[in-house]
Structures are given as C-alpha cells and as structure tokens.
C-alpha cells in the first residue's frame, strides 16, 4: 500500500532526498524519521530535501518529521528544503510557522 520504501531515500551530493508518501500521519511518521536518521548518521549529508510530489495529506506528524531533521542538521549548517508542495501542504507549513526554517522550492 502506501508505504515508504528504501528507494524513496536517496543521497545526491550532500543532500538527502526523501520522497514522501501520499499521506503523512503519525502511523507513517516513525518509519520516515528513523530511516532518515540512519542516512544522516551513515552518509555525510548536510541538507535534507523533502519531496511532496505524491503527498496529498499531511498532519502535524509531518511537522514533527521536518522539525526533528532540522534540529539534527542545523547545528552543522544544514538546511531543510520542501519541493513540489501543493497548496494544502504549503498551508500546513504556513500555519505551523515552519516556513521560517524550511525553504520551499518551486
């Protein structure tokens, strides 16, 4: 079903790219966070890019994922990016105030 797979995590240069699932809630958040952290430890990545192309639903669990990764990489000068966020996802980012730490691209 709508599960996050290993191929949804990719390291390109100094970025960890995460392709997010169609729906992000608490049920799926743990897997995404723990897998992302494994990559952050293993590979020397500076930035994290969240790809929302397939994502149609997100609740505050998604905010937790982004904030958690931001905390882990910001002390080394890393940045968090959000790409392909539709209007609904952008709204969630705005309401949560996350727009201040996340750079949205496109």
């Amino acid at each position, binding site marked *: 079903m709508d599960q996050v797979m290993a191929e949804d995590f990719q390291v390109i240069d100094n970025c960890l790219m995460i392709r997010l699932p169609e*729906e992000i*809630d*608490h*049920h799926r*958040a*743990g*897997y995404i*966070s*723990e*897998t992302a952290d494994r990559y952050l430890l293993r590979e020397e990545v500076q930035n994290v890019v969240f790809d929302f192309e397939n994502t149609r*639903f*997100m*609740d*505050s*669990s998604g*905010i*937790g*994922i982004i*904030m*958690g990764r931001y905390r882990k990489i910001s002390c080394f000068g890393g940045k968090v990016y959000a790409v392909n966020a539709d*209007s*609904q996802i952008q*709204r*969630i980012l705005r*309401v*949560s105030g996350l727009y201040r730490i996340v750079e949205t691209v496109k």
Partner: protein
Amino acid sequence: MKNEMEIIFDAVSDNESFARVAVAAFVSHLNPTLEELADIKTAVSEAVTNSIIHGYENLYGYGRPGRCPASRKETNPGKVWVRCVLEGDLLHIRVTDQGRGMDNVEQAMEPLFTTKPELERSGMGFAFMEAFMDDLEVESTPGQGTVVSMTKKLGTGGWIEGEE
C-alpha cells in the same frame, strides 16, 4: 435536515487514516471544497492521533519494522469514538476516548507543548484543530478520558478555491 453517524474503532494508529477518510466521506454529499475536506481530515487526524498515543499510549507499529522496543509491540485495549452530526451546513465532530485524560488542558493546547518529544510530536495538534475548524472545545478528566468537540461551517470556501 439533521444527519448523524458514529464510528467506534480500536485505538491503534492503523485506524487514523480510516477515521479521517470516513468523516470526509460522510460530508461528501455537501460538495465541500478540497480545502474544506483537507481541513476536516487534518483536524480529525490530530484528534484521533492524540487519543491513540496520548490517551491510550499505544505506539504499536510506530517506527521502523524489525527493531521495535517492547513498548511498541503491545497495545492497550481501548476504543476511540468519532461522532459526526450534520445540521444544515454545520458539521459537528466529537472525538472521545476513555484513556488517561489530561491534568492541564490549557497547557496541552499551547502550541509546541508536547509530552512526547521523543516521538517528535510537534505540539501542534490542538493548534491545527483550532486553525482548521471554526470552533474547538476540549474536556478532559484525568483517569477517565478526553472529549474533543469541533465544529466547522461548510460551503464558505468556494471563493477561495476559485482564486487559486
């Protein structure tokens, strides 16, 4: 016209998507905008998730499979009730659990306040419910459970969608 429905389900996170989709389907005949549907789904998702992980402290299935601590392997028995009443274009949603309840509702509702930072809960749940619904009331009795009541007026978002 009044229309009512209630669903009762086990307090496990697999049911979060079921709950919000059921509520969205219940209002679909009113032709809500995509934005209204997303608002309702987000608010239901927040309330139900709170009942599951805070009310009943069920973490079953959370995290990567294969390396789960024992606390994530068992579930506390418990049900979540989601009751919806449609009165005209007003949607009332009530999410009830019989979990541990909260001592300090006001503090729990503060943005960024969370008792489960280790789960990366952002502390934005109640803030989202307030932002995406028109009215929010929370009643909680420690040891007995929590009732979250939300109201939203539908059919007001048409012009916003037209702009986008």
